[in-house]
């Protein structure tokens, strides 16, 4: 696979690593009992601890620890029995303590990996460096008053997992696939709601470029991207920017960048002189976090089937391609839907590929067009199963089935109901089909002449005409066979 991009002078390779910030799915914050509900009125979910009142102390929320361990297991990573919370010191108006409690030297989760699958059937491992727990900051609202900044501390202290990858990613697409995969794993595990719009999942992208085979170049970090689209755009822009600098003889300055979503450009957030020295040191208010092997074992036993396991199971059981299986398992609701559909009738197991196609192309395109979700679709897995059964038993043609599905999608009726009501059963009566063909031949003598003279392609014309007369219900194979025999 060629991942190189062409510059004016050379080909260049992107080297990309992601730091994903995933909000831990938990009712209360990492070190306080305040609610984490999104969208509540400003400063309504702030405890004395979150506001950093004098003498207030953090107490670890054990549920968040369990969530982090679960996630670590899902990332095939090493769970550390011993980890330490550190303070990352800096001043900002929405950081009430004047420091963020994070994990620096000793994170709760160590090295792991996730696999991304390409359309061509190949796949690639992206290595994870670490996952650690940390507090989120509050929010500064600059747009509420012309001369003032307001601070909303609802988010202050909410638990985040920071998942850091090795710089194993080489293209914007891979970056997108990687974050999708992480999101999928988190959602299967129920450790993050995966909602990128609400900021529950966001990423910092580290990117550098190099000539193939060279050492890593100097990288820049693009902060706080909250959609896959923006991640790809930002990477493309930033790579181009860096290549232009390098090709015109310049050098890259290590920098932190912001991405402007309306212009599609990156710009430096601060320059070197303002670079922070965070003065990390172990938080003396908290004891080191120790988790026993038994506790880790217990948490492991809570973990549901994860996308990769499920993917392999689908490949083995239903002989699906790696790519099909990975599309099916990318979201839990999709794999659940597939499972329910294929289990709705024993016959369907022999038509797994057809089931996949009907879900991932026909049904998905309807959902997309109507901006709907599998969960609230009127087409139940059983009904889709029934539709596919009607196709596989030749009761209706695939073409008609598409119309039926559209009807099911908007009316909520079953496939059988629609087929019966509209009389859409396939015509499989040889005599009836022959009669229609005779009619078509009789009405188009010139065409018949040309066909017989060697214009084979005209067969399609006759099929079309015959279908028109049967309103599309003629069994296509029978129609073809009879046509051919009559036109000899």
């Amino acid at each position: 696979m060629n991942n190189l991009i062409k510059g004016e002078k050379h080909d260049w390779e992107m080297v990309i690593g992601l730091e994903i910030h995933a909000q831990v799915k938990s009712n209360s914050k990492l070190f306080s009992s305040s609610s984490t509900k999104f969208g509540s009125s400003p400063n309504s979910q702030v405890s004395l601890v979150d506001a950093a009142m004098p003498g207030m102390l953090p107490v670890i929320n054990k549920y968040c620890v369990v969530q982090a361990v679960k996630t670590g297991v899902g990332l095939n990573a090493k769970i550390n029995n011993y980890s330490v919370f550190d303070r990352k010191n800096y001043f900002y108006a929405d950081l009430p303590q004047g420091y963020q409690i994070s994990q620096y030297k000793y994170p709760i989760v160590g090295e792991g990996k996730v696999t991304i699958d390409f359309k061509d059937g190949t796949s690639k491992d992206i290595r994870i460096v670490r996952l650690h727990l940390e507090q989120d900051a509050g929010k500064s609202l600059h747009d509420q008053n012309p001369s003032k900044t307001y601070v909303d501390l609802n988010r202050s202290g909410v638990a985040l997992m920071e998942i850091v990858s090795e710089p194993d990613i080489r293209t914007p697409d891979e970056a997108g696939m990687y974050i999708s995969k992480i999101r999928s794993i988190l959602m299967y595990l129920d450790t993050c709601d995966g909602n990128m719009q609400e900021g529950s999942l966001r990423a910092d992208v580290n990117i550098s470029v190099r000539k193939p085979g060279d050492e890593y170049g100097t990288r820049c970090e693009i902060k706080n991207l909250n959609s896959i689209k923006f991640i790809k755009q930002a990477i493309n822009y930033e790579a181009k920017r860096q290549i232009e600098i390098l090709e015109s003889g310049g050098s890259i300055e290590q920098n932190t960048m912001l991405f402007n979503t309306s212009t599609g450009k990156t710009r430096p957030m601060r320059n070197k002189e303002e670079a922070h020295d965070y003065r990390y040191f172990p938080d003396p208010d908290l004891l080191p976090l120790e988790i026993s092997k038994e506790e880790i074992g217990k948490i492991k036993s809570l973990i549901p089937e994860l996308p990769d396991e499920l993917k392999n199971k689908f490949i083995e059981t239903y002989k699906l391609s790696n790519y099909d299986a990975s599309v099916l398992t990318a979201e839990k609701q999709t794999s659940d839907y597939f499972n329910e559909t294929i289990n709705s009738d024993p016959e369907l197991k022999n038509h797994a590929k057809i089931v996949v196609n009907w879900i991932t192309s026909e049904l998905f395109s309807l959902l997309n067009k109507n901006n709907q979700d599998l969960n609230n679709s009127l087409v139940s897995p059983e009904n889709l199963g029934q539709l596919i059964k009607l196709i596989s038993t030749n009761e209706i043609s695939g073409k008609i089935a598409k119309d039926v599905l559209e009807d099911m999608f908007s009316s909520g009726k079953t496939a059988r109901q629609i087929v019966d009501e509209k009389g859409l059963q396939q015509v499989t009566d040889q005599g009836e089909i022959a009669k229609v063909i005779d009619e078509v031949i009789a009405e188009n003598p010139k065409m018949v002449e040309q066909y017989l003279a060697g214009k084979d392609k005209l067969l399609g014309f006759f099929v079309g005409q015959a279908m028109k007369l049967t309103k599309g219900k003629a069994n296509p194979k029978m129609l073809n066979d009879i046509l051919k025999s009559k036109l000899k």
Partner: protein
Amino acid sequence: MSKSSLKQTLKNLESKKISIRELNQDYLKRIKEKENLNVFIHFSEENVLKQIDNLEKDNSAKKLKGMPIAIKDLFCTKSMPTTAASKILENFNPTYESFVTQKLLDEGSIFVGKTNLDEFAMGSATNTSFFGNTINPLSQENEPLAPGGSSGGSAAAVAADLCLGATGTDTGGSIRQPASFCGVVGIKPTYGLCSRWGIAAFASSLDQAGIFSHNVEDASILLQSIAGFDQRDSTSAKVNIPNYFENLDDDLNGKTVGIPKEYSIDGTPMEISQIWEDAIKVLEKKGVKIKNISLPHTKYALPTYYIIAPAEASSNLARYDGVKYGFRSDEIDSLDEMYENTRAQGFGREVKRRILIGTYVLSAGYYDAYYLKAQKVRKLIADDFNKAFKECDFIVTPTAPSAAFPLNEKQNDPIKMYLNDVFTVPASLAGLPGISIPFGKDKNNLPLGIQILGKHFDEQQVFNAAVSLERSYE
């Protein structure tokens, strides 16, 4: 000055010799008479009378019912402002009650006021307070003396008999040293015995609440009341709290006392060495085995402390930024300016000095050389004690290298000031319990203190040794 003890006062109340109102009015009167000592940052007679009213209506039995107690103004209290002796918290009124003060309220004690301290507990003379110096009640008229610090207000409150007990906090000696200077008893328990919840933090890994009192018995009663596990403080210990008072036993026969040779420091006044020897002699007479021990890393304790404590403080005090509560400078044209001016105007010199030191030792490039190394030395110091306590039951040393010094003597020499903590800091770094009791006087008739250190959570042994020495001295 004959002061009645808390224990005796409880008896007097019980036998109705005196009422809660009469008792507290007596104290109110003295507090007003001694206003010149500047013991309190916050005192409101009205507030005290209200507490008396409430207690009179309360028929339940409470262990400290009606006892006038002074609270170091580092403990957050709902009924009184809390300043940490800093301009930056000048008008701060907490909506919450610290663990320790809540315990005292639950037991029915009356808070007479919030006592002065060094700003954010940083100091050894109660002379860095935004609210002015506290004067040691033992001062001669022509020469005002420092009460020690940082809990100088609380020590002075007990010494001047303005209360029957007081809370303090001790980070490197802030209870024991002022107790010694003011001639009262002061105990800093094991780190983790009393919850830090609701105490404005100075250095989290060292801060510990404790008690000032007229005598050891009273200290044992009061400490019992404020100790206990608190799930809101992750460093709070889940240990059984014995009834220290009931278990007091001055019979030390068969016990072993450790005498650390490293605490004989050149330049220590003769009188201090003398009372130390006296104390050892008294113990020997009581059948205590004297064991010379070595705590080899003692000389590193002070520098170690003055790295770790400021490091933690520099971070702990970052929350005072003018954004959410407390003082905010008027001169603010930008966020950075708000921070700079608020903190420049809101903090005093000593606090700024320590924030600077702390910021420096945590900085990239210096962390390993200072903070990390200090942590390693801290471990060695703790190990010294662990080894020593295999050979002895408790350790006896002087509390401070001098008696109370004149108020302004060391004002401009921070290093000299820091040396005050030389005997108290090692135990703080090791998290051990320590008590200071008055034991002898210097040539100017100023009290001197003896420090008794015990094993982790062995406050009982510390009290026993203290009460034994105290009784022999009386």
